[in-house]
């Protein structure tokens, strides 16, 4: 690099997130377009982080007014320059995010194209409408606890029978994506659930002495502190889980000696305790054929582990002061197949554990407590770095005869000493407290108990008082429709399904499977709006896609676009580390992977004809792109969904002829695992 001072027309010092793909692309665009450019910007990230009064990052004349009108504002500027006779000397760019381009801003943009203004419109496409699916509700189903995103039509979900107050399982008949909405958190002493203000909850209405109490539906908005909502305490399904694990035989693996280890075919209390220990302190390394436990020597935990292991699997282990190692490909693969996830921050409790018999669930919790738990009499505390694990443990404990308090979560800054070492980066961890529920003496103090908990003698449900309702922020929301009872159990609390209000009006066929965390063109059953094609259909002279991962190509396209008279459209794929949940240093790699897998084809249309495509000499599998992003983490466990996304990429490859003559399918080894 030369030593001369670099002058940019989009200067640093703005307030974008680290690794923001949009700010990278914006600088590339304006540097390519040059100083004789006027920019009209829609409301959006770029506008907010670059021009907070009294500062501005822009070295060219720049204007913003609303979310959706930059197509029209730039038309006005162009008309004014034509009137002044200076248009030929000045470029006009109107730029927006994907919402400001494809959704709310489409009308003004379409008008601008149709009128033929000499303007380059740029879309910084960060797929933001689909990104922050922190749709975190956990739904109790007959097959265990599931994330609301994984619920499919036909799944039987737990519901509250409003006549008998019993637990029933009812078929889910619809799943609806309700978009991004204001979300509130309702908390009781033992539960918390996030919902929109208009979501109804089942609330106890006390009618007074001598009268029958009833349950009524109240929206979260109407609900008040002290209202009693219905919470689940027993899931009623008790079935031993059968594993469908295929053992690796000699010759299937890189070594020719395989430990003759017996893998159990179904769950048992001992196995569950063992797995509890694994979730707390264990790891697997499938490539080495190794399972390990970080449990120091001469502790009761180590003793119990050895006892369990010997009993379950025989004695194939190695020990040192700190660790216990088991060399077995089969055991490693078996444990991996149980979906506990890897890494302390990602460990979780899979769905199937929630439907095990009581005894086995208790054994699992015992195992967890042995690893990272602390017992003070009947007060138990479990510590973990995985928020998901704590959330699920809290619900598991609730239906296994425990009361569980709230999750205490804290983040510790890098540098703090923790277990004799300084933390290298900011770390989050938390704990949840629980205690065994005492059996109430209902005969003796019947009315007192009922006053505290109207459903005290109900086998499946409790009533709990609302302690807090807080605004959380804007989050994507989903909703279910459930047959007959029209309610379901979300995060342990009975809520009304709201899909029913729409059922008569809209054909939901297209909507009946959960939108699986769609990347725009990947996974979402409703494909992304084909903006480039829509632009081409307007008969404009130049339409292209580009990526923040290919800066030279991007700048070349900007220069080409402004050299052409008339309306132009350039759509730039810009990763958003915050929304896509990838490490900020991977922005470039993520952008490149989208192109290299075929998910984001780069092409140019000139005068309505496909003129150029960026050929791929190596076509990577879509998993590579999905794996580096937190937003797709849950997706990878479902090969069906990955296959669908691969199909989108394959379709792009075929449609645009992306494959170079000697293209090869890349092996899937170079994949980076996402962290956090």
């Amino acid at each position: 690099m030369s030593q001369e001072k670099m002058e940019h027309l989009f200067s640093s010092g703005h307030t974008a997130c680290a690794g923001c793909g949009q700010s990278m692309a914006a600088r590339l665009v304006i540097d390519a377009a040059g100083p004789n450019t006027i920019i009209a910007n829609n409301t959006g990230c770029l506008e907010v982080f670059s021009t907070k009064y009294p500062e501005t990052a822009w070295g060219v004349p720049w204007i913003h007014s609303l979310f959706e009108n930059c197509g029209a504002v730039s038309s006005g500027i162009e008309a004014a320059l034509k009137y002044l006779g200076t248009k030929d000397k000045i470029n006009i760019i109107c730029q927006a995010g994907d919402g400001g381009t494809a959704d709310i801003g489409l009308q003004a943009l379409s008008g601008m194209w149709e009128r033929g203004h000499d303007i380059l419109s740029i879309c910084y496409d960060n797929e933001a409408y689909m990104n922050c699916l922190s749709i975190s509700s956990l739904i109790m189903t007959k097959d265990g606890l599931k994330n609301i995103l994984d619920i499919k039509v036909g799944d039987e979900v737990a519901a509250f029978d409003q006549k008998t107050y019993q637990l029933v399982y009812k078929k889910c008949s619809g799943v609806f994506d309700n978009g991004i909405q204001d979300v509130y958190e309702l908390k009781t002493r033992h539960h918390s659930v996030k919902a929109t203000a208009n979501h109804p909850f089942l609330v106890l209405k006390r009618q007074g002495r001598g009268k029958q109490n009833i349950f009524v539906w109240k929206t979260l908005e109407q609900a008040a502190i002290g209202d009693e909502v219905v919470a689940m305490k027993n899931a009623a399904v008790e079935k031993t889980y059968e594993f469908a694990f295929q053992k690796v035989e000699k010759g299937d693996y890189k070594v020719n000696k395989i430990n003759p280890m017996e893998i159990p075919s179904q769950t048992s209390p001992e196995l569950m305790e063992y797995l509890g220990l694994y979730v707390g302190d264990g790891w697997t390394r499938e490539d080495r054929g190794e399972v390990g436990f970080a449990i120091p020597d001469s502790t009761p935990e180590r003793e119990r582990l050895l006892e369990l292991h010997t009993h379950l699997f025989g004695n194939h282990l190695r020990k040192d002061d700190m660790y216990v190692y088991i060399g077995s490909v089969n055991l490693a693969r078996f444990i991996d197949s149980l979906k506990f996830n890897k890494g302390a921050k990602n460990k979780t409790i899979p769905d199937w554990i929630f439907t095990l018999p009581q005894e086995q669930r208790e054994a699992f919790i015992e195992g967890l407590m042995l690893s990272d738990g602390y017992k003070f009499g009947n007060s138990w505390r479990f510590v973990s770095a995985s928020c998901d694990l704590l959330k699920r443990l809290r619900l598991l404990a609730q239906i296994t005869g425990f009361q569980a308090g709230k999750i205490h979560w804290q983040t510790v800054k890098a540098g703090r000493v923790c277990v004799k070492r300084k933390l290298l980066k900011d770390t989050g961890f938390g704990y949840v407290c629980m205690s065994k529920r005492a059996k109430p003496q209902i005969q003796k103090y019947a009315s007192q108990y009922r006053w505290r908990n109207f459903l005290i003698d109900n086998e499946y449900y409790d009533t709990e008082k609302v302690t807090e309702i807080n605004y959380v922020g804007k989050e994507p929301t989903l909703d279910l429709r459930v047959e007959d009872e029209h309610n379901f159990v979300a995060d342990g609390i009975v809520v009304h399904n709201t899909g029913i209000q729409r059922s008569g009006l809209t054909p939901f066929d297209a909507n009946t499977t959960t939108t699986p965390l769609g990347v725009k063109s990947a996974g979402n059953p409703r494909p992304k709006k084909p903006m480039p094609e829509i632009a081409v259909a307007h008969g404009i002279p130049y339409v292209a896609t580009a990526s923040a991962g290919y800066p030279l190509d991007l700048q070349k396209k900007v220069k080409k676009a402004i050299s052409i008279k008339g309306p132009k459209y350039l759509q730039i794929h810009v990763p958003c580390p915050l929304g896509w949940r990838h490490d900020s240093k991977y922005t470039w790699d993520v952008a490149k992977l989208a192109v290299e897998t075929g998910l984001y084809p780069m092409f140019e249309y000139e005068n309505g004809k496909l003129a150029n495509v960026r050929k791929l000499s190596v076509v990577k599998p879509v998993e590579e792109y999905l794996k580096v992003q937190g937003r797709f983490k849950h997706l990878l466990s479902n090969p069906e969904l990955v296959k669908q996304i691969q199909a989108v990429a394959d379709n792009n490859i075929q449609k645009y002829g992306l494959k170079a003559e000697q293209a090869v399918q890349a092996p899937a080894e170079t994949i980076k695992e996402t962290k956090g």
Partner: protein
Amino acid sequence: MREFLEGSRAVAEAVRMCKPGVISAYPITPQTHIVEELASMAARGSLNAQCVNVESEHSAASVVLGASAAGVRSFTATSSQGLLLMAEVVFCIAGMRFPVVMTCANRAISAPINIWNDHQDAITVRDSGWIQIHAETIQEAMDMHILAYRIAESPKIMLPVMVNMDGFILTHGLETVDVPTDEQVEKFLPSYKPLYKLDVDNPISLGLLADPDYYMETRFAINETHKDVLKLIPMVNDEFSKVFGRTCGGLVEEYKTKDAEKVIVAMGSVCGTIKDVIDQMRAKGKKVGLLRIVSYRPFPIAAIYQALKDVPKVAVLEKAVSLGSYGPLLAEVRSVFCGKKKAPAISGFVIGLGGRDITVDSIKEVYKKLTTKEITEEYIDLKPELLEESI
């Protein structure tokens, strides 16, 4: 030169003489002939302006916002639903201090859909920061556009102006008007020299994010500027009379209020009818008068106080409602006298909503109803039989 012109065409003629560089509007009903006429002037070559035919009112307002930001005088016209669709941009134009001039052909708001005249559209965006002036006649509507640019572009003001003229009654009515000459307009209205604009030689950013540390001051500044507008309008009006030989309304117009016992306060074309009634009643010896509010925003509090302080009975007659409260004009006129020792009895009447005819008899009825007892909201010419039906 005196010509017999339709209101819309007269306004188009005035706008042409103001030489705007960019004109943009969306031609849906309820719209007027103003923009059509301007477009044909541009086609004929008598107007050197860029006409942008947009796909919605929202974009029409956005185009003039962009053009004004680029330093060019710009014009748009709208009405009713169109103004409401623009509302978002209307606030923006004022907030960004662009001296756009817009004609609003005042019409009713849906639902039910109704394309006839009342003032609900303009009243709905009264808090946007725009200067709002109301014309009584076609002549005045024409003159007001010339005046509007002069006020809007004053370096001390830099605020948009909405010239309100009653839909159909003025926009589609015909009247003999005195059309000013190009020389007169040139003399009165210098060419636009923007204080700030999008300029590649001197780049600035417009429309920045103002956090809680800065936002409030922007609103305060607009409010202060409105006080300056109150001082400016009479001065510019005097200048206008010197050049054109007639006034252009000023802040308020007093018609036979000096010794009046009963005065109607009103805005817009209905004032013509009221003046006729006053002349008839004065002939019979009844002391009645009219206070016409020309500038609705800024609201001329001092002028109204001066005009009405010695009048015992006042009727506020308005073509808009604030459903669930007093009529908007009634509330404001009453607030002028709030806490003052000398306060007239001020009654409120709603009239002519959705284009219902306002006859001489209707106005006479208002004067008749005006006693010392204050009436808060009475609808004139209401049809009780329709209400019974609907119940």
